[in-house]
């Protein structure tokens, strides 16, 4: 069994008194693909955003590669590690957004090379070579001088995946990466993600693509109302669920 690289235990998070995450726990092992499914508003994206440090948790423990990002203090409320530690952990995580969030004033190549150069202090030559390699993999070699507005949604999302990969993250998070795309472009992105899975990239994917979750994920979590209702293999969740709520949710996809 390979090592656990992400642990989240009993994560709680509220917005203005309303609890959005009501004690979520999960584990991800190296090379594994975890799919998080569930209805809109179930807290899936909030969970990802908490782990990616875009939101702060109210209580719970998160650790990455055995480094603690946040844990409960004596009063049971979350205490974050030092800013240096949080930053170090953040650099091990990549995040692909639903609406890409490419930098519009940078060319495709600059979008991918800027962070490695500015943040990781790589040489420009090294960063450019790595970016070209990634663009080739994404089938976008001829687009390196284009600007984001000149690209289709699917191309933009592939650039944003390349941008995340250029930082060599240990884990790559996807927050509904295909929800802003039409079915044809969705296929493009799912192909790229399948390829990454085949290369044993560790991924946590919040998605409404049930077929993808079924085929590619090693584990699936079904969330509803801020809790994990089920956690199992795709087969357990999709074919043999005993949970009424899961079955009701999934039936809408199989009809």
């Amino acid at each position: 069994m390979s090592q656990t690289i992400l642990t989240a235990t009993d994560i709680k998070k509220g917005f203005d008194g309303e609890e959005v995450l009501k004690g979520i726990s999960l584990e991800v092992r190296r090379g594994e693909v975890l799919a998080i499914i569930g209805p809109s508003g179930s807290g899936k994206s909030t969970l990802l955003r908490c782990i990616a440090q875009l939101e702060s948790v109210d209580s719970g423990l998160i650790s990455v590669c055995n480094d603690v990002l946040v844990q409960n203090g004596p009063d049971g409320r979350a205490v974050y590690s030092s800013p240096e530690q949080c930053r170090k952990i953040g650099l091990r995580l990549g995040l692909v957004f639903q609406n890409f969030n490419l930098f519009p004033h940078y060319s495709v190549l600059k979008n991918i090379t800027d962070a490695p150069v500015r943040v990781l202090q790589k040489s420009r030559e090294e960063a450019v070579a790595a970016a070209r390699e990634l663009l080739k993999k994404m089938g976008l070699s001829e687009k390196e001088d284009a600007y984001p507005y000149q690209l289709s949604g699917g191309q933009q999302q592939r650039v944003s995946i390349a941008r995340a990969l250029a930082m060599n993250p240990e884990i790559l998070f996807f927050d509904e990466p295909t929800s802003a795309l039409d079915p044809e472009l969705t296929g493009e992105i799912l192909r790229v993600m399948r390829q990454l899975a085949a290369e044993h990239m560790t991924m946590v994917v919040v998605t409404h693509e049930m077929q993808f979750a079924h085929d590619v994920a090693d584990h699936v979590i079904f969330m509803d109302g801020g809790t994990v209702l089920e956690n199992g293999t795709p087969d357990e969740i999709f074919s043999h669920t005993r949970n009424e709520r899961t079955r009701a949710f999934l039936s809408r996809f199989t009809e």
Partner: protein
Amino acid sequence: MNYQVLLTEMFTATLMSLQIFLFTLIVSLPLGLLVALGRMSKLKIVNLPVRFYILIMRGTPLMLQLLFMFYALKPLFGIQLDRVLAAEVAFALNYAAYFAEIYRGGLEAIPKGQREAAKVLGYTKSQAFFHIVLPQVIKRITPPMGNEFITLVKDTSLAQVIGVVELLKVTSQWVSSAVDMTPLVIAGLFYLVMNGIVTRAFTVLENRLSYYQ
């Protein structure tokens, strides 16, 4: 009317107008950004005084502010600025308030996903601000900034109320002493030329920033 003397005096006075124009920009462009950030701060102790400052600057006549800066600092604080410096400080403080509101509009128009993407990629807050957010803000605020620059060229003429010898002051002296309207026409042309250059500069800037959307 001795046109050579007239033109020489008008050119000299124009240099004074330009000096006020440039000083105001050099101070108020960065100051306005700080004011905008203060205005957007979630801390009441920061944003309330800043809002009050903006209210005063935009809510009272610029001419009053010029008079205040020259005549009122002495009785209040024992500070006497010379005429030109008083004018420059008054202009800079006033324009910083307007620039701040323009910056704020630009800053609030940048989707928060841009900062989030930068954060996840490991940019520090200041890297994200200066390399990701600010360039996009500058593109968005170029047209309203052009308006303000043009207004400032003309507003420099207000400095004459505290005795600064700028272009329109010299012009009106010539007009009243010689009973000849020609200097008014010439002054109008001077302002037009200055604003023609400002307009051209902004067109060039907008074109240079049009490589992305």
